[in-house]
């Protein structure tokens, strides 16, 4: 059986950042990634990021992925990769089972494991929600921005969080007609700048509205939307039919934490963090010693915080394995500070309260 010092499950921003810091500390790692290449969600994000300079603000997501991948390339002697390979099992004896691109299974043993699997898009329950043509918003973003294929001609977006707004804008950029963005809540969920950009293009954003059903013979042809009152109850007589050949669902992400449940980590359901998340201490170690987490899998946030968490955990794992980074103390302090800054202000409130709930602390 192959044996490694540090096994990283998931080559998204958090996994790549951790590999870099571990390598700088002197630790070799193996990154296992089920997609064809590393980069995670960033490989499809053509928009410029917010945040501070330190987390590559004003840089497009796709370019941030390039930066992280190139940083790792500088440590080619310490970082190796297995792509098109899915981790299907994680066991208490620190063995993972993987399925490779030829559908062959094998086992790998590790001294420390970092689970950086990210999150997946939620589904929404309504009649015929399984018709081909109904896709996650991030999935449509991949189809368009990675593969250059259009999802359809006329689209409705369900959900006005940042992802819903950004993908709607990118659909318009690619030449797709976004007929409307609908939002069940009474207010738009995402940043005002994103909403304004859409409105300038003439896209209507309707609040207090959801999708009731979908129709189509073999594939999506139309949807029925309906108004909701402030208690999220349907208002009779407000149904409206819209013909579309694609519907994007953007109603949030939930952490891909099933491998952690499998290995027996203590889990907690924290709605503000997206769902079932592992209980962790300040070093991002789960209740199973030497199994660490970083990024969306331990609370859905943003790429900026996923990157910083990755750096932070990479340092800690190095130290755990007896290889302390030359600037350990200073960097730990710096990354802690950066995370605090990212989570300050009104938009960080959700994360702050979620983390407080996870740690069983009282939240002011």
């Amino acid at each position, binding site marked *: 059986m192959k044996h490694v010092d540090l096994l990283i499950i998931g080559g998204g921003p958090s996994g790549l950042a951790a590999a870099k810091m571990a390598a700088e500390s002197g630790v070799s790692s193996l990154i296992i990634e*089920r*997609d*064809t290449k590393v980069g995670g969600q960033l490989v499809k994000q*053509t928009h410029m990021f917010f945040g501070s300079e330190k987390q590559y603000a004003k840089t*497009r997501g796709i370019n941030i992925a390039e930066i992280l991948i190139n940083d790792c390339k500088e440590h080619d002697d310490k970082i190796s990769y297995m792509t*098109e390979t*899915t981790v299907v099992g994680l066991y208490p004896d620190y063995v993972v089972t993987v399925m490779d*691109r030829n*559908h062959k299974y094998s086992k790998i043993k590790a001294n420390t494991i970092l689970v950086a699997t990210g999150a*997946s*898009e939620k*589904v929404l329950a309504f009649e015929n929600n*399984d*018709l*081909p*043509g*109904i*896709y*996650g918003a*991030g*999935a*449509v973003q*991949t*189809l*368009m*921005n*990675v*593969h*250059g*294929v*259009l*999802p359809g*001609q006329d689209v409705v977006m369900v959900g006005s969080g940042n992802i819903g707004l950004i993908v709607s804008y990118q659909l318009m*950029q*690619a*030449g797709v007609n976004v007929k409307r963005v609908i939002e069940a809540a009474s207010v738009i969920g995402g940043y005002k700048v994103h909403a304004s950009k859409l409105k300038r293009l003439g896209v209507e954003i309707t609040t207090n509205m959801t999708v009731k059903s979908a129709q189509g013979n*073999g*594939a999506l042809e139309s949807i029925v939307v309906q108004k909701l009152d402030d208690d999220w109850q349907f208002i009779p007589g407000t149904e409206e039919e819209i013909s579309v050949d694609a519907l994007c669902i953007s109603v949030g992400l939930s952490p*891909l934490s099933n491998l952690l449940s499998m290995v027996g980590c203590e889990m907690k359901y924290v709605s503000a963090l997206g769902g079932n998340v592992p209980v962790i201490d300040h070093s991002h170690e789960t209740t199973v010693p030497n199994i660490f987490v970083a990024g969306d899998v331990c609370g859905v946030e943003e790429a900026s915080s996923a990157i910083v968490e990755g750096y932070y955990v990479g340092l800690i794992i190095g130290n755990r394995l007896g290889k302390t980074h030359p600037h350990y103390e200073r960097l730990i302090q710096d990354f802690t500070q950066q995370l605090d800054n990212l989570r300050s202000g009104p938009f960080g409130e959700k994360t702050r309260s979620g983390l407080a709930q996870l740690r069983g602390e009282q939240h002011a």
Partner: protein
Amino acid sequence: MRIKEHPILDFKETKKLHFMYNGKQVYGFEGDTIASALHALGIKTLRHSIELKRPRGFYCAIGNCASCNMIVDGTPNVRTCITPLKEGMQVETQKDKGVYNETR
């Protein structure tokens, strides 16, 4: 349909790849996944649900939900959203759970 012009991205035409879809020869391009190549051809139904045989297309495109499973070169349950297209592949709509073929 493929994007021809884009304000930010540049989609260069890559090598044409021929493959078989349910016995018919079709093509996609290098860099495609099986699912993206089929979608570009207007093919949205990739499999049928196991019990009720309802048509299903992809949903997550990150290899997580199994909604895009097809039979590829005789192997069932291949997640076509993260499987790169290759010249000469045999791709079929999957209509049941699939049978594990130990000799492969």
